[in-house]
């Protein structure tokens, strides 16, 4: 359990660093955009909302930085992230709560699919080194060199403008009310196809390549030779002996590259106007809506840390040496 404890401790420190960065940025960087917003909104802000923006963005010059920091944590713990300027007068926390499920659904599912698919293809490509599978590598390299958002643009132009097969934007058909009905769920799935495939196509290559290279290395190990010599079926040697060991770096890499993948997925949401966090962030940029942008950053960081912890538990199950006590 020490392994998990160490990791959990690390994630707590990371979370603290992210929150502190969020606290410091508006105070360190020049300019006072939030003050400008407050002036603009003038009388439309009630005193509570004003007070919380003052705490979050350090506009109260009479307090020391330490007092501000303590107040900041106080607000966060209560789930108070300030008011969104874009969706005025909705609190940022409410905007995030609405868009979070969309991002979790789209990005979560596609990331897992891309990881499984890429790892499986990588296992075969590494096992059958020198076969036609090697030609996959340059193709996937090219695909992964394309920015996520550009692939999304191409997908829209081909499959919803030239051949109108799938909708180009949104999370569900405009007339529908979110509910548990066949029609609504069907519409959600239909709208998720293009953004989903975009994310999978551009993120799968990394997994294929990493897994292939590890498989090539592992296949040369003595224990694989022994397993073969024992007369085990090739399939069993490939999966239970070679792949099981080769997958470990992929899983620890999964944790570390998640932040990067999520960034790309947010862009896909922007291009498809998908009602998740990425699109909310995009709208926030246009309006210079700092409370909203910072809220998105915190929520995404939190989600990535939780996903990392899950990946660690997976690692623990696959690699017995991490389970050793002490």
């Amino acid at each position: 359990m020490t392994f998990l404890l160490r990791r959990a401790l690390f994630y707590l420190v990371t979370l603290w660093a992210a929150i502190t960065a969020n606290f410091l940025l508006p105070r360190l960087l020049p300019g006072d955009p939030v003050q400008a917003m407050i002036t603009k909104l003038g009388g439309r802000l009630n005193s509570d909302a004003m007070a919380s923006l003052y705490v979050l963005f350090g506009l109260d010059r009479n307090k020391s930085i330490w007092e501000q920091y303590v107040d900041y944590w106080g607000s966060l713990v209560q789930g108070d992230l300030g008011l969104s300027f874009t969706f005025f007068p909705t609190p940022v926390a409410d905007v995030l709560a609405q868009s979070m499920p969309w991002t979790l659904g789209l990005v979560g599912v596609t990331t897992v699919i891309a990881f499984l698919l890429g790892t499986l293809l990588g296992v075969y490509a590494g096992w059958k080194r020198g076969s036609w599978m090697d030609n996959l590598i340059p193709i996937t390299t090219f695909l992964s060199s394309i920015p996520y958002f550009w692939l999304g643009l191409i997908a829209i132009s081909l499959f919803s403008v030239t051949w109108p097969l799938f909708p180009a934007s949104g999370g569900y058909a405009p007339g529908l009310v979110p509910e548990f009905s066949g029609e609504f769920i069907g519409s959600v799935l239909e709208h998720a196809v293009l953004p989903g495939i975009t994310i999978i196509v551009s993120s799968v290559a990394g997994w294929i390549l990493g897994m292939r290279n590890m498989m090539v290395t592992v296949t040369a190990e003595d224990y694989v030779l022994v397993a073969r010599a024992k007369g085990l079926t090739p399939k069993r040697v490939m999966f239970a002996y070679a792949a099981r060991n080769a997958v470990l770096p992929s899983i620890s890499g999964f944790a570390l590259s998640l932040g990067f993948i999520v960034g790309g997925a947010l862009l896909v949401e922007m291009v498809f106007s998908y009602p998740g966090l990425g699109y909310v962030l995009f709208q926030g940029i246009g309006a210079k809506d700092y409370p909203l942008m910072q809220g998105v950053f915190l929520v995404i960081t939190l989600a990535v840390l939780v996903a990392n912890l899950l990946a660690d538990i997976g690692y623990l199950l696959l690699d017995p040496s991490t389970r050793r006590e002490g």
Partner: protein
Amino acid sequence: MNFKTKLGLGILAFFALIAVVGEWIAPYDPSAMSDDLLSPPSGAHWFGTTMTGQDIFSQVLVGTRGVMVVGLVCGVLATFLSILVGVTAGFLGGAADEALSMLSNIFLVIPALPLIIIVASMLPSADTVLIAAVISLTAWAWGARILRAQTMSLRRRDFVEAARASGERTWRIIVFEVLPNLLAVIGSGFVGTVIFAVMLQITLSFVGVISLSTWNWGTILFWAQSNQALGLGAWWWFVPAGLCIALLGTALALINFGIDEYANPRLRKVRA
């Protein structure tokens, strides 16, 4: 050097050349408007024109410099940081290693894109070099992690022990004994960072947080997206810039494969 590596170097050299001469060979002023509104590729406008009649071919040519400069500056800065942190951590070990590893892991785990978007949009003037510096601050951690692991495996080798026994100072051992053995790793880290920086810069321009007054490939895509080029069927507006990004990215990835195969012979192609 195999064919893949040569191809990668060739494409890279081509873009480097364009970065230098692009401004002189561009047939039009990239920002100048004309009467050819939204026309598809033709003899006069190789990549067609935008909604306001700007020549897209000229925009791509002129925009290459911004992309290459950010890539290069970030590559150098971030590689320097990663050597500083990674090699120090790996060589010293102990508490210094714990602290530095934790620092680089924190930078790896925190999602860089939303953070950079916030920083870039808070900066009053987001010029190219400043953006490059901000990107470098998030781009060094991956290289540092790999360098640390590699340095740790070198630390106890005989030649390092010999240098230590003969009374060499620590910084001298690091620079003259350890670093030369890390060149392949540093090289591939550098190339990887350049890819990351180029993508990030283009993304930031596309999203609209970087100043749009200087041209780069992301700016072209920003204007294409905000003027509904997709709905208008103006494919020529966003295809060339995207293909350039993909080509440059592929070229850098191919160079990296070359370095990897040089360092790890097992990855080389075998004849089945």
